[in-house]
């Protein structure tokens, strides 16, 4: 408690990004074993990302493509030519 390594939060994010070096991972593991606050912090971060990922996928409305095609300019703009 109060003795957390300076960059420990940074290491948590490196861990979450799957980009943690073996050295940082060791420091993180060793610290988590003795610090319940940091354990809780990492757990909350993991829960957060899981919640965001749990959001269901949404689909565009059925007539989406048709509407886009209808709105396309009739003649394609040619670069440098003004009509």
């Amino acid at each position: 408690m109060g003795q957390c390594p300076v960059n420990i939060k940074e290491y948590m994010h490196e861990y979450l990004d799957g980009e943690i070096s073996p050295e940082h991972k060791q420091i993180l593991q060793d610290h988590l074993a003795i610090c319940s606050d940091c354990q809780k912090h990492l757990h909350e971060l993991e829960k957060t990302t899981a919640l965001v990922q749990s959001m269901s996928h949404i689909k565009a409305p059925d007539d989406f493509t048709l509407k886009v095609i209808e709105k396309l300019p009739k003649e394609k703009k040619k670069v440098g030519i003004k009509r």
Partner: protein
Amino acid sequence: MEEFVKSRINEVRKGDHNAFGEIVEIYKDRIYQLCYRMLGNAHEAEDIAQEAFIRAYVNIERYNINRKFSTWLYRIATNLCIDRIRKKKPDYFLDAEVAGTDGLNLYSQVKSKEMSPDEKVAKMELQEIIQMEILKLPEKYRSVILLKYIEELSLKEISEVLDLPIGTVKTRIHRGREALRKQLRNI
């Protein structure tokens, strides 16, 4: 997939609307979803997602065929969403329909006296709560979090979409996660 898209783009460049329709079909759900999660409103999401495809069509000559088409499209859509968010006046949010609440907006929630905010939250679906908390993030964090966790882009792709160094993308993801952690930890 990329090869097919590129062959279609060559047809689009000759003015083929149908070829562009095929491209829209491939990407419409991903682009619409990004806009919906960025803006939290189905009507605006449709408007901006359509605009993104129209801009892609109009500017198709500017697309560099050697790069991934989806990256370019995400970039157009993200910029349009951010522009839209910045143009919104603060009180606009009160009028905005709350995602997934079928016409209920924050104004009606504020005005309504029958239920306390806690009771309202209790009645909200988890998905709506998460969406609401994402909408509270500043747009620079919102965009990276959505591109990473909803669209599942790599850090490198996100840096290309947003035209930011990869280090900046990481910092924003870290801060976005920290902000969301505070908002979501008690759920």
